[in-house]
């Protein structure tokens, strides 16, 4: 490496816009959320906290932070969080999406990619079809899935002669509503995974397959012994990113049920997710951001833990 003059000041100029924006909109939020999670009864009322305080007759022992007031420092937010039934429902729903729909999507995507890779005719056409959902608008397609499963006018109910069976309308059970959300997540998630798997498959050396052919290896064995091990880095990458994405599931639920709703009429919290719970804290009057921040810290902790576990587990079976 040729040694040239250090470019400290040039780098400072080049990085300044990016770093400045990140300090305000990325680094500060991380610190702030962490602090807020540990402030008891933190109320941030849009520069009106003084009026709010006099109205609410709060304890005199408060202090200010970011224009909001709090009564003390502790883990009260986390206690509130885990005592809230809605949060526990949110944990359950998010866990279902993460641990059921992600593995199913990954397996289906892998099968589609392998199938696509093995055919010759119409391959380009099918590839385009499978890539289609990649750029779609979550809200728009949520409405479409809503209409597909509409209680009276939906395609599914008309087709299978089950008009009156409520999937996402009032009276829907958790299982049925979750099934629609599950289908939508699979539909929405396939494209990205297929694209990544296909590009991975195209990089596998053809010689492995030729060797297997000479030995007359059965297809499923070729799949489990050659394709899957050689694709394992891609599979790991996809599972980690999909898990992270699935923990943040929110827009698709909103898309299916409508603004501020996580379930059918009469049971708005049926499919609430962790992110939905956190955002809901905005709408509560007085805005207890502390509980919301505690919720997002819990989410961050879970994501970090799962990712670390995956990284550890991957050491056993990922072939680089």
């Amino acid at each position, binding site marked *: 490496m040729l040694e*040239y003059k250090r*470019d*400290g000041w040039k*780098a400072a100029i*080049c990085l300044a*816009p990016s*770093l400045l*924006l*990140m300090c*305000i*909109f*990325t680094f*500060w*939020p991380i610190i*702030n*959320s962490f602090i*807020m999670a540990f402030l008891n009864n933190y109320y*941030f009322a849009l520069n009106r906290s003084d009026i709010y305080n006099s109205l609410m007759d709060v304890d005199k022992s408060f202090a200010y932070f*970011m224009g909001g007031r709090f009564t003390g420092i502790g883990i009260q937010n986390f206690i509130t969080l885990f005592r809230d039934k809605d949060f526990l429902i949110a944990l359950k729903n998010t866990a279902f999406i993460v641990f059921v729909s992600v593995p199913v999507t990954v397996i289906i995507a892998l099968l*589609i990619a392998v*199938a696509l890779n093995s*055919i010759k005719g119409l391959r380009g056409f099918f590839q385009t*079809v*499978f*890539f*289609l959902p990649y*750029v779609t*608008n*979550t*809200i*728009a*397609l949520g*409405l*479409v899935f*809503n*209409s*597909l499963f509409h209680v009276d*006018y939906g395609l599914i109910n008309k*087709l299978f002669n089950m008009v009156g069976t409520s999937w996402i309308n*009032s009276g829907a059970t958790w299982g049925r509503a979750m099934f629609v959300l599950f289908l939508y997540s699979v539909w*929405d998630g396939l494209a*990205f995974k297929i*694209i*990544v798997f296909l590009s991975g498959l195209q990089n596998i050396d053809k010689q492995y397959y030729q060797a297997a052919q000479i030995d007359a290896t059965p297809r499923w064995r070729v799949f489990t012994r050659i394709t899957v091990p050689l694709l394992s880095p891609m599979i790991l990458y996809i599972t980690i*990113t999909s898990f992270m*994405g699935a923990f*943040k599931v*929110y827009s698709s639920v*909103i898309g299916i049920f*409508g*603004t501020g709703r996580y379930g059918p009429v009469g049971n708005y919290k049926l499919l609430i997710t962790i*992110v939905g719970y*956190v*955002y809901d804290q*905005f709408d509560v009057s007085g805005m207890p951001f502390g509980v*919301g*921040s505690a919720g*997002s810290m819990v989410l*961050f902790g879970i*994501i970090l833990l799962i990712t670390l576990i995956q990284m550890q587990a991957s050491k056993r079976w990922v072939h680089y």
Partner: protein
Amino acid sequence: MERALYLDPNELRRFKIKTGIARFFTYAFIILMAAFIVVPFLWMIFSSLKTTNEIISREVTFFPRKFEWANYSKLFTGIKAIDQYGNEYEAFKPMPFHWMFFNTIVVGFFTTIGTVVTTILAAFAFSRLNFKGRELIFTIMLATMMIPGEVFVITNYMTLSRYTGWIKSANHLENYAALIFPFITSVFYTFFLRQTFKQIPNELYLAAKVDGTSDFKYLVKVMIPLSQATITTIIILSMIGTWNAYIWPSFVTNSIYTNHLLVSNGLMVGLRGASETTGPNSILNLQLAASTMVTVPLLIIFFSFKKYILRGVSRSGIKG
């Protein structure tokens, strides 16, 4: 030919049948999954052209019997209905699509310009300049990609409402500012560009140095033209990102001002509770017409820039 000599003709026939069956099942699987992907799109487009009578009829129709193009003009004009007391009310409020498209394009344009400028400068610093702490700063930036988005949303909402008057502002430009500023840099695009910049041979840089070219001129005259494909990908993905943005806009835009809405929010606000309306008042066809209006531009972009979009995918996703 040589090989055929050693093969038992019976075995050869069995082998042919076997591969034939395998191919049949492969195609059957692909076609089935392709149908799963395509049906929601077709249902959306076809149902958006059905009359309300056809929507609410018990018969199963997929393809519209009569093309009701008026559905699309009703999106702009709204529907008036008369309730049981003889009073006129708005069964469907007109949706400000012209504003939704215009706002999204304006916000997308400025977000994209800002993102491209800041990420090019940062990627240049990380790939070409030599300064202390380069790897450390880069690692810290990458690490923030793991943190769930709602951590940022809560604090950014607080920061903007405390120090600016942009949140839910009645002023059009202030609303734009709130939508644009937090998003004019991106860690992922910086990373993506840095990888591209690193592939440009160092010899070019050294040759330019010998000729006395300044770093800035080298960036503009050599690196940017050589990375055109990557920059195009970033521009397209960033525009699509704004088109699909829902969460942040839903917090900072006041939906009372319908001319401030972006597409996803407009869709949500306009169709709130739509699926619960039944009988002749059902607006399922309008709901799907609105979804089509939002989806079709995306599909056009997808087909025109497929190559560029897929380039970005193999690195990471835009959804999340």
